């Protein structure tokens, strides 16, 4: 259930006329999107629609070719310093978890705070244990990633991103690689995170999650944003045909 509309403050993330090409093929076409602090956006759409690419542009894992991207006041350009600043404020959770197998879970969580935020090791470990407890895997802290189940690994990945105290959390299909019985535990912690007021952009097919948590649902197809509305409107009265078709495919079964 979304909160009352946030007061008019400067946007946390602003994408203005963002376009990206692979060769001659346009994968993002004049994307315009604004995200206010504390807002939760769910992005959905058929595969190949560019939703992952758009999200990965926000922390410069991919670079945009036209338009502007501004994150928390910093514009994303080729300037390395800007990129580093943005990456410190933005946390990302991947579909394939991408935990570092040669470090323990605790090691995974403390690596960036120690080396990027220059935190003392003890302090980093305390913060890490707090988040690991929040993710309900505190007892796994000294194990290696391959010893955990998929659901536990993804929760560890979320904790790792949170340890950097990001202002924004990006989720790129976080539950798509999980067995069905583990999707629930990951969505649970994401819901808790949303309730605490974190700004989130989440690419997912989990429509139940969208209904419960999203302030806005964005539908993308073929590189464009087709439909953008609050969850209620989006699910009951979508305006565009392509969106209706997509919803019927997703929700039909």
């Amino acid at each position, binding site marked *: 259930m979304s909160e009352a509309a946030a007061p008019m403050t400067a946007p946390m993330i602003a994408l203005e006329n963002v376009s990206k090409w692979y060769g001659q093929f346009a994968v993002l076409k004049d994307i315009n999107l604004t995200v206010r602090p504390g807002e939760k956006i769910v992005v959905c759409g058929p595969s190949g629609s560019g939703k992952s690419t758009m999200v990965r542009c926000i*922390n410069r*894992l991919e670079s945009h070719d036209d338009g502007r991207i501004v994150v928390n006041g910093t514009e994303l350009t080729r300037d390395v310093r800007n990129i*580093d600043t943005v*990456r*410190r404020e*933005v*946390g*990302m959770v*991947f579909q*394939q978890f*991408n*935990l*570092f*197998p*040669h470090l323990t879970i605790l090691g995974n969580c403390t*690596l*960036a705070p*120690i*080396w*990027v*935020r*220059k*935190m*003392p*090791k*003890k*302090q980093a470990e305390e913060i890490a244990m707090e988040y690991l407890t929040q993710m309900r895997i505190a007892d796994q802290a000294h*194990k*290696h990633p*391959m*010893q955990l189940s998929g659901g536990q690994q993804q929760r560890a*990945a979320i904790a*790792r*991103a949170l340890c*950097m105290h990001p202002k924004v959390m990006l989720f790129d299909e976080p539950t798509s690689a999980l067995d069905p019985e583990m999707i629930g535990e990951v969505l649970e912690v994401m819901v808790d995170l949303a309730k605490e007021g974190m700004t989130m952009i989440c690419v997912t097919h989990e429509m139940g999650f969208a209904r419960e948590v999203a302030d806005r649902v964005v539908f993308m197809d073929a590189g464009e944003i087709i439909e953008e509305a609050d969850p209620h409107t989006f699910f009951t009265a979508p305006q565009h045909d392509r969106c209706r078709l997509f919803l019927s495919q997703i929700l039909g079964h």
Partner: protein
Amino acid sequence: MAARARHVWWRDTHWRSIFAQALVLVALVAFAAWLAHNAADALARRHVASGFGFLDKTAGFSISQTLIDYTEESSYGRAMWVGLWNTLLVSVISIVLSTLIGFLVGIGRLSSNWLVAKLCTVYVETLRNIPLLLQVLFWYFGVLQALPVPRESLALGEWVVLNNRGVSVPEVIFGRGSWLVVAALVLGSAAAFALHRWAQHRQLRTGHRPVTWWAMPLLVLGLPAAATFSLGHPFALSWPELTGFSYEGGLTLSPELAGLTAALSIYTAAYIAEIVRAGLLSVARGQREAAEALGLTRGQSLRLVLIPQAMRVIIPPLASEYLSLTKNSSLAIAIGYPDLVAVFAGTVLNQTGQAIEILSITMGIYLALSLLTSALMNLYNHAHRLEGIG
């Protein structure tokens, strides 16, 4: 009532396997006995001795390069040791050089710079497809023998002199009290290392790393320098100097050693480059993305995430490559470098005719090196295995 199958012993799987193995063993023993009989016969006919007594006999030939004392009156056994040390010498030098070059080329192949990547690819694809023996001959006969005579040597200032007698560099002569300077060097290195550990500890404790980059070279070089001055320069450098028709003084690497080292290093580096490249590529792409998403710089993500994972994949084939290099050093016989095979399985075998003993010893030595490497590799794999489920 159920019929009972007749249990015949020759269809029983247990007895069949025992029977088959017994057959194999008997055949093998019979074959070995026949071979031994032939050999004893043949050796007697040629009036060749048997046994390992020859190892104590006088060698009667000289060796051009020795790391240990050896004269014509030394025994065959001693000649074997000379050969072995020479093998180890050329192998160790080549291993160090090839690793340096190989890592650079391997990382270069993955560079985002198109020119660098192409150049490294050309290097690897050219050298891996030409026989090593040809490369050895090229370096020795084509390059080193083609160097000018000492009177017209190529020289890099006064430091390196290249001519067809070899490569000469200045030699350090240790005078009185020089051991103190060496001790100072060791002390300085230890102090620099301790400083490094202290800085690491500080960082983990407080998050900030003290600036140490200027202090470490100061310790490593400054302490020995201070010792040198205060002791009145106990070192002397012996420069290679042209006297008459050749160079005297300094340290000279024979053209055989130089040629073999050059060929071995450059050839093996091409293989090491491929191993390094495969190791770096084996680290999943998502690892680099996750590291970058967390804000780590390129250097940090290489150091903390990518290289530790890549080394696991690199080290085992790297050890195999080192072993290969050591075995390949036996090509020394083609250019007259006195390694184990050239001295022992070459000259000594020709003089004594005791092929069986000599080749067995030679093969035994290489086998021992192989097994040692395997054992060390198993230890490394066990110590660095990734903890997994089950």
